[in-house]
């Protein structure tokens, strides 16, 4: 289903609507309160945007530096040009090492390439260990949010899922449910052959990959199994640990209104000879899947993104329809840009148009991505490639024809204003009008006064 149709269903989903309202407290009010404690927030944003741009401009150099450092610490770095390549690499790692079971912590890139499907097809059992992702794995649903994947689900729905899958008595308390999930996961953490994690950033100067989490599950995934596999996008590289410190001032605050997350895990290389813990093998899969295409293009600012989710949390469209309406891995304004860019503008449909250009996403973005401008550029591509409905293109062309010809426009406006005023009748409201039923299906259209300003003004000047 396309955005418009799915959104329509979501607008009438009472459970979702309640969940979306509940989420606003932490995501919107919490963020605002936490940002307010930083007196140079804007300066940090500006610095971070420039830092991310600098990385994107020299992406190859930073990635090569990262690879050298990671390899020097015993990791193996793999380069995946496409989603299929990324999956093939990880399936091969699993096969080469007779991996039967995988524990996994949250990774949006793994969702992007549909890694779980590929591993399952190869006979590997994958267990999501982020609580939200675990819930969705039970429910067989994709995440609806990049930070809080199960934000669309109610407590009651989760309780039922646990009854169905854990075969335990029904719980009502969230803490008790969390404890139950933790107990179920524990044995898997200890038994898994391979752990797969994402990376919030990878650091060039040290060859480090890192995760920022609140649950601690990522640490179990990255340290316990004998093999640790990291999958992440090539744009996640940053030059130094200092740069990481800067970005950490922005990321948790923007994402969930926290000054820092409960866990912040930097992983550098494999277990050394004199160490007790850590994986024997570390594989880092750096995924392109459309990213290099953005470098140097008019969409390159999108590569600054540090995946905090603030743009969707503040988007009035997302707030009303939720993440699943966007149809792919990335919801909200970032998805309205990334989905067309990664999956093809031909299939983008309404996504670039799913914005009033209210500008909230741009204002809250920690790395100042001009999301409305990027969506507009996609609309330009759609217009130029004739991808929008003929009626819409025709309407714009007719409008363009008239507004460029003042005398003709004045005449048309006079006729239009009178006609619409006449339809409006005594209560001066248009209840239905062909061509604008998108408006009149939910709202009346206040009718024009009847004469245009310019004709009234001209009459006044003559007097």
């Amino acid at each position, binding site marked *: 289903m396309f955005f418009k149709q799915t959104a329509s269903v979501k607008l009438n989903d009472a459970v979702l609507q309640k969940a979306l309202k509940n989420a606003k407290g932490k995501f919107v009010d919490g963020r605002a309160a936490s940002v307010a404690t930083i007196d140079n927030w804007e300066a940090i944003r500006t610095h971070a945007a420039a830092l991310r741009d600098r990385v994107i401009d020299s992406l190859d150099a930073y990635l090569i530096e990262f690879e050298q450092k990671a390899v020097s610490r015993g990791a193996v770095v793999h380069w995946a040009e496409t989603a299929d390549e990324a999956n093939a690499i990880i399936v091969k790692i699993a096969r080469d090492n007779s991996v039967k079971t995988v524990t996994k912590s949250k990774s949006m890139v793994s969702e992007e390439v549909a890694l779980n499907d590929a591993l399952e097809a190869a006979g590997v059992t994958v267990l999501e260990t982020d609580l939200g992702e675990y819930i969705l794995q039970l429910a067989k649903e994709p995440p609806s949010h990049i930070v809080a994947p199960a934000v669309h689900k109610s407590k009651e729905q989760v309780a039922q899922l646990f009854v169905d899958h854990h075969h335990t008595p029904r719980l009502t308390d969230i803490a008790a449910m969390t404890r139950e999930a933790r107990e179920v996961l524990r044995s898997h953490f200890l038994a898994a052959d391979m752990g797969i994690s994402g990376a919030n950033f990878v650091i060039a100067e040290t060859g480090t990959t890192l995760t920022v989490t609140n649950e601690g599950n990522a640490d179990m995934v990255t340290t316990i199994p004998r093999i640790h596999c990291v999958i992440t996008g090539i744009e996640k590289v940053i030059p130094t640990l200092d740069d990481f410190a800067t970005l950490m001032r922005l990321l948790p605050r923007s994402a969930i209104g926290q000054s820092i997350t409960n866990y912040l895990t930097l992983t550098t290389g494999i277990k050394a000879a004199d160490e007790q813990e850590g994986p024997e093998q570390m594989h880092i899969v750096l995924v392109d899947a459309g990213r290099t295409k953005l470098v140097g293009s008019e969409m390159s600012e999108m590569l600054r993104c540090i995946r905090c989710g603030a743009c969707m949390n503040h988007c009035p469209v997302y707030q009303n329809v939720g993440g699943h309406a966007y149809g792919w891995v990335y919801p909200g304004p970032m998805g309205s840009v990334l989905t067309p860019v990664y999956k093809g503008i031909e299939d983008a449909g309404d996504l670039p148009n799913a*914005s*009033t250009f209210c500008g*909230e996403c741009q*204002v809250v973005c920690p790395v100042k991505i001009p999301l409305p401008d990027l969506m507009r550029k996609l609309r330009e591509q759609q217009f130029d490639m004739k991808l929008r409905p003929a009626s819409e293109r025709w309407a714009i062309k007719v409008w363009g024809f008239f507004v460029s010809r003042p005398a003709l426009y004045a005449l048309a406006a006079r006729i239009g204003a009178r006609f619409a005023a006449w339809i409006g009748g005594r209560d001066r409201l248009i209840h239905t009008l062909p061509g604008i039923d998108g408006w009149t299906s939910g709202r009346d259209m206040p009718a024009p006064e009847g*004469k245009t300003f310019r004709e*009234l003004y001209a009459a006044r000047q003559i007097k």
Partner: protein
Amino acid sequence: MKVGLFVTCLVDLVRPNIGFATLKLLEDAGCEVIVPATQTCCGQPGYNSGAREISQRLARKVLAEFKDCDYVVAPSGSCSGQVKIHYVQDLFRNAAESERIEFEKLSAKWFELSDFLVNVLKLTVLSSEFAAASFPGSITYHDSCAGLREINIKHQPRKLLARSGCNLIEMNDAEKCCGFGGTFSIKLGEISTRMADNKCVNIAVTGADAVIGGDLGCLMNIEGRLRRTGDAKTQVYHFAEVLAGMAK
């Protein structure tokens, strides 16, 4: 001081009263107001629909029409954002230097109405006629997105309304989009309507007699939803109408 009035296509077509209220406010303040008769639209509907060339053509037309004015004033934050921000930063960003400079000049002399009254004319003391124009009931104010986030319109209309004696009750989420978004309101009407609904709820909670704003598109969207849901009572005005004593 020669002030060009950019009336906006919506005001011209739908609510000329806002244009005349703007004219009155400017003339009462001693401005020589010029209204170029050939003006049509700033180009925003085309620009935001991806029709870049048409919007560039319209931008050049606007530039020519207001070339001789010391200032240009528009009763809209959205059209003002289009001219002040998007013409310069996007549409003519890579134009020949001479043309780019012309658009930079246009941007610098172009003001949204409340911004012009407060920050250029510095109307700190209102004329007695102005003060008497205050709206008799209580009001609440909706901040339109482009005005607020593109050109920082927030305190200017509130200052003017307060000085003219209006009783302003702030609503929750006054800065949240009402769902208008130009063609968005038609293309994705169902979502747009829900956003308008949220706005109407916040307006109703204040109990204000009228909701005031600075962009006719948003006002039509809010009024349209109020009326459709059976609220015939809450009035909807542009701040210029209130300030000029022309809220009718």
